[in-house]
């Protein structure tokens, strides 16, 4: 790896940040323009029928024939037929707030069967009580996942790593959900599963990079944080790309061999894995760098006001920064101060841990 060029990922931080913000913003606007999310019956109660139809029919024909039977609009979707499925299948979504949803299902079933153009193969129904419960459950689920992850990374790394990771996760989630809203894809329980899987996956990438950053901060003879981050991201780049590739290979095979909600799930994962890979390379590590710089500047400010020692350090920083070639040469052991800086951090951290441990012991 040492012979590889170091890619200056952090150089265009601002560009990528603004790009992400712009994308999230426009997706949000588009979602609002399209009338919000297309909630599935999981969250807005109703009935979905899975039907099979003859070769001759299509979505439009079905909508025209079935639509007039009901007061509320009927959503007809083609369950993308792959070569593996012999028959054409469609889903018919009927929203209903009716309390006794089972009766509604029976009536609708009769109406549709009377038309004699499709054969009902399956049905799903969710009552208003249940969908309210599912909405509540989703919030609990998502929040608890995020909080637990925050706590774990805080425990294993430091708080600002955890915050950076969570921001990156929010970034992934917003983009994924934005795409779902913009293209009016079904927003169902499976979508939540997809979002949480993407969170887990993207975090996986992020942590591998963080791990390397932490390690390099202790071992590299430079204190230029930007270099360390770039070096770490480059070092883990092939791993990030290969894992994304194998995951995408697997998810693509789900996409091609499933139908309906599982196929949609695969599509959401494809988007999520791609965005997650991007965010762990460009967003998460850049955020750690950003926070680190802020912390350091804060400390330097303190030191400066105390003595004049800070001046020498900033020049030291410059002296080890990389040449524009982007090649990380053999860096001589730089002035001891910058190293001390990170060593001091480590010392502080271990001391804090030791104190905590002692406190715990005292409590016992």
């Amino acid at each position, binding site marked *: *790896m*040492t*012979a590889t060029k170091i890619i200056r990922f952090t150089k265009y931080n601002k560009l990528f940040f603004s790009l992400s913000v712009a994308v999230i913003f426009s997706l949000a606007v588009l979602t609002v323009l399209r009338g919000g999310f297309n909630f599935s019956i999981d969250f807005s109660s109703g009935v979905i029928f*899975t039907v099979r139809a003859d070769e001759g029919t299509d979505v439009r024909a079905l909508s025209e024939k079935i639509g007039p039977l009901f007061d509320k609009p009927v959503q007809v979707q083609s369950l993308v037929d792959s070569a*593996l*499925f012999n028959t054409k*299948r469609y889903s018919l979504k009927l929203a209903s707030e009716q309390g006794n*949803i*089972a009766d509604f*299902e029976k009536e609708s079933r009769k109406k549709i069967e009377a038309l004699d153009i499709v054969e009902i*193969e*399956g*049905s799903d*129904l*969710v*009552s208003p*009580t*249940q969908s309210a419960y599912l909405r509540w*459950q989703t919030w*609990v*689920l998502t929040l*608890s996942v995020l909080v*637990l*992850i925050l706590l*774990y*990374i805080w425990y*294993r790394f430091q708080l600002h790593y955890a915050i950076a990771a969570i921001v990156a996760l929010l970034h992934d989630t917003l983009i994924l959900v934005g795409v779902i809203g913009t293209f009016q894809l079904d927003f169902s*329980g*499976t979508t*939540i599963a997809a979002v949480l*899987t993407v969170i*887990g*996956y993207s975090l*996986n*990438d992020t942590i*591998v990079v963080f*791990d390397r950053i932490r*390690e390099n901060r202790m*071992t*590299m003879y430079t204190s230029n944080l930007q270099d360390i981050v770039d*070096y770490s991201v480059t*070092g883990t780049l092939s*791993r990030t790309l290969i894992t994304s*590739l*194998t*995951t*995408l*290979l*697997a998810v693509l*095979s*789900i996409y*091609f*061999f*499933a139908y309906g*909600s*599982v196929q949609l*799930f*695969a599509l959401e994962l494809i988007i999520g894995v791609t965005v997650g890979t991007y965010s762990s390379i460009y967003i998460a590590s850049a955020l750690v760098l950003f926070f680190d710089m802020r912390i350091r500047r804060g400390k330097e400010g303190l030191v400066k006001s105390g003595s004049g020692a800070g001046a020498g350090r900033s020049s030291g920083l410059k002296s080890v920064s990389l040449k524009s070639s982007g090649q*990380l040469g*053999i860096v001589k052991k730089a002035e001891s101060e910058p190293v001390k800086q990170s060593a001091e951090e480590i010392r502080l951290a271990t001391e804090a841990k030791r104190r905590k441990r002692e406190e715990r012991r005292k409590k016992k």
Partner: protein
Amino acid sequence: MGKISRFSIVLVSIALALWGLYPSIWWYFVATDEEQSYANMTRTTLAEELRQATETDVLEFQKLSYEDKNALAKDVLGKDQAYILDVAKRYRENYRDVEKPDSWTLEAIGRMFGGDEAGRELMRESLEDYKLEQILVYRSRKNSALRLGLDLNGGQSVMVRPNPDEFAAEVDELLAESNQGRQEIEGYLQNRIVASLQSRIDQFGLTEPEIYSYQDGRIEIVMPSQNKVAGQTDTGVVETLLQVKGSLEFHLVNEQETEKLSSYLNVNPLKSRELSETGELKDYKLPAGQVIRGYYEKDKYAMDRLRGYLVLESETLLDGENVTNARMDKDNVGQWEIGYNLNQDGAAKQQKIFTNNPGRLMAIVLDKRVLSYPRISDNAGSGGSYSGGRIKGRFSDREATNLVNVLNSGNLPVAMDIDSQRVVGATLGEESIRSGLIGIAIGLLAVVLFMVFYYRSAGFIADVALVLNLFFLIAILATMNSTLTLTGIAGIILTIGMSVDANVIIYERIKEELFSGKSRKAAIEVGFSRAFWTIIDANITTGIAAICLALFGNGGIRGFAITLAWGIVCSLFTVLFVARLIFDFNTDVLKCKKLAIMWRKISSGNNSQQSLGGV
């Protein structure tokens, strides 16, 4: 740890996994259609089927005996009756005082059980026990096999909850007449609802519905597809199951007619097969307004066994709607007695019955089967109250519980609201499972080929780990008795893609170490140890997401999350433990010096860059 002990751990895990997978393999690949249908039947249907099958076998045996009584059993018995010989031998084993025949001729077997009517019945019962034991083995295998979810198998599932208003009203009512706390009453009522649904299950012929009760009061009823061929699901089943009114009835027993009937049946034993649904026997005259019903007792396998026939007066005295609540108590001599409460209408009716028919037998009939026939005692209505009653008798624990459940099953105490429902046609399920399996195969193939292509022989080791990972994963899912759904399959495929990640992290590390000039052994050593915590951290966070999904998610999502969570555990084991072992084996035993892990050559010039630090 030495290589040998590590290797033994791997072997033991593989053996355990095979053991866990055995029932699933048997159920899906070995079991015949007949064995499967026997295992799927409700106990009631099974008891009926068994009785008829063994009756036929006994008749066949008798026919063969008439033809040639000295023929050897093993020569003349057909495929379906061959087990009679085994049963006879076992019977001899169990009853040593029975003389061992010189040769197992048909006559010898017949004589062993006794040639008369009772002997025939004894033989039939022995055959029935033998078959039942086999079927119970099928059942236990089926129950420990990996289940297929609704979306793969077809069928219907409903999630119901007690109507909150009715539930609250019922709780208040019960609270008023008892001294227990609200929470206990709620728990009791919930259990009663579930028990009531459970005892109704038996009415549903060929496939047993499953009932799951959740903490929050919801109840899920899963009804697998009844008929695979037609691809249709019987949507009526759940409706019947949830009907408030059950088929519980009370009838008076006509003792005289019952005696007449039993002596008639003793002479004509096979006649009983001609008993119609309406309770009439062909060629047997009953006085008007009388019906014949079978009397059943639950045996030790909780199967309803036919014990005889009763003649009942067809007028229904009380029905399930009248019974509001039944419970079991110990009386002052420690015997179980079953108490039941009646509503106003029921109390009025009971008063009339009791005063008009003291000392007669009253049959409790569920779904046209007599399950108990206590005698009406003279002082039943003592204290002037007929709003309830007590049934006394020498009940065992099992019998008492059964009777309480039967009385309670008469009507659901509260109506149930349907929260969600799912119906999947069997054809749709079949196509889903086929495409799911192809999805797994293609995904696996793509990843396996990629790894070999990119990492060469090290990639092959990763592939071995990957395949083992899948094997362990499926074995764990089967052992945990979990249900495989389409989303679960998606979880498996995702595991295929993500679990090579651990390999990738390690291999990229090893590559770096090789570049810095380390030997094969040292590079592997450092690669694995450096990557260890990264892999743990990365997987724990994915695990957090998966576990939360498994805990809070519903239905399909839970299946996905469980698969994903176990996929993580299995991949950690196969990569960190098994793959490492293979590497070490190649280094130490096969004396490999080089490591084929990449296409690029390591130029010696790179050594000078070692000083960059242990990256």
